[in-house]
């Protein structure tokens, strides 16, 4: 028997059928993993750990899950978001370097191009990490997940207009952080020549 197409029906089935929960997992694991991966600074092992915890929590809360007009994906992303917030709180005092996605080569990309892109990505992720959590969330949901503002509004519990306004503020904040980082980098480079 094929699985129901609608997630809502699949969730109800998952309450009594473990295989149905497996299907729910397969439908959403990439989305949840991507969200967490970029929220934790592209750290693969942490992303895997938090993804596992997200689905374990979803399973634990499944009997109490009630359809309230919120998509199942939004429910899962909220669980992920809370786990990421706890992760940031626990790692706040440590200097957590961004993980190098050393093995990652996008299709058709030369190693030199990949290295350059990797470096740019590190700069961007460092600037992103300085933004408030909800702005980081917006960037990942909009650009990585490709979610539309209306759907992001449901996940974030805001109006669509507020999400769009936040997008503007977020990109402006990101631009500022990148400019400051670039300036700091240039000052470091200049220092040996000025004798400072």
């Amino acid at each position, binding site marked *: 028997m094929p699985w129901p197409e609608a997630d809502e029906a699949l969730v109800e089935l998952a309450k009594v059928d473990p295989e149905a929960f497996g299907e729910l997992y397969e439908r959403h694991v990439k989305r949840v993993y991507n969200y967490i991966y970029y929220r934790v600074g592209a750290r693969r092992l942490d992303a895997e750990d938090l993804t596992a915890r997200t689905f374990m929590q979803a399973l634990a809360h499944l009997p109490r899950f009630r359809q309230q007009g919120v998509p199942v994906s939004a429910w899962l992303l909220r669980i992920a978001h809370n786990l990421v917030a706890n992760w940031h709180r626990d790692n706040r005092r440590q200097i957590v370097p961004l993980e190098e996605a050393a093995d990652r080569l996008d299709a058709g990309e030369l190693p030199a191009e990949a290295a350059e892109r990797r470096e740019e990505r590190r700069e961007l992720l460092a600037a992103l990490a300085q933004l408030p959590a909800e702005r980081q969330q917006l960037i990942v949901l909009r650009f990585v997940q490709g979610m539309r503002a209306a759907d992001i509004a449901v996940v974030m519990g805001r109006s669509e207009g507020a999400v769009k306004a936040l*997008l503007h503020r977020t990109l402006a904040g990101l631009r500022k952080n990148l400019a400051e980082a670039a300036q700091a980098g240039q000052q470091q480079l200049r220092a040996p020549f000025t004798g400072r």
Partner: protein
Amino acid sequence: MWEERLGAELDRYVDTLLADGQWAAALPPGLEELAALARRVRWLLTPVEPSPHFREALHARLLVAAKESMLAPAVPWHTQHRREIIIGAAVGSVLSVAGLAAVIARLRWTTKSAA
């Protein structure tokens, strides 16, 4: 309000970026820098695949956990609804006592009237 308007322009631009992945021809006026940044973000933050090993291992773990939770003995209904039962018993007791008191009071009044 103006920020919502600017945000809406930017959001439309991002829709175009995400739809066809090409640099959109028409940049929203006054937002060229932010649009350029949006392109950069789109180019750099591409979706990643979880490793197949991780994905399969977690699937197996979740199936085991799901089966275990479904096989766990069901909580007896009287334990599940313990609070409601206690409240119901308390309310019932109060009503019984009140009813009895009313009957006794009426009997006494009737007896007094007869006397």
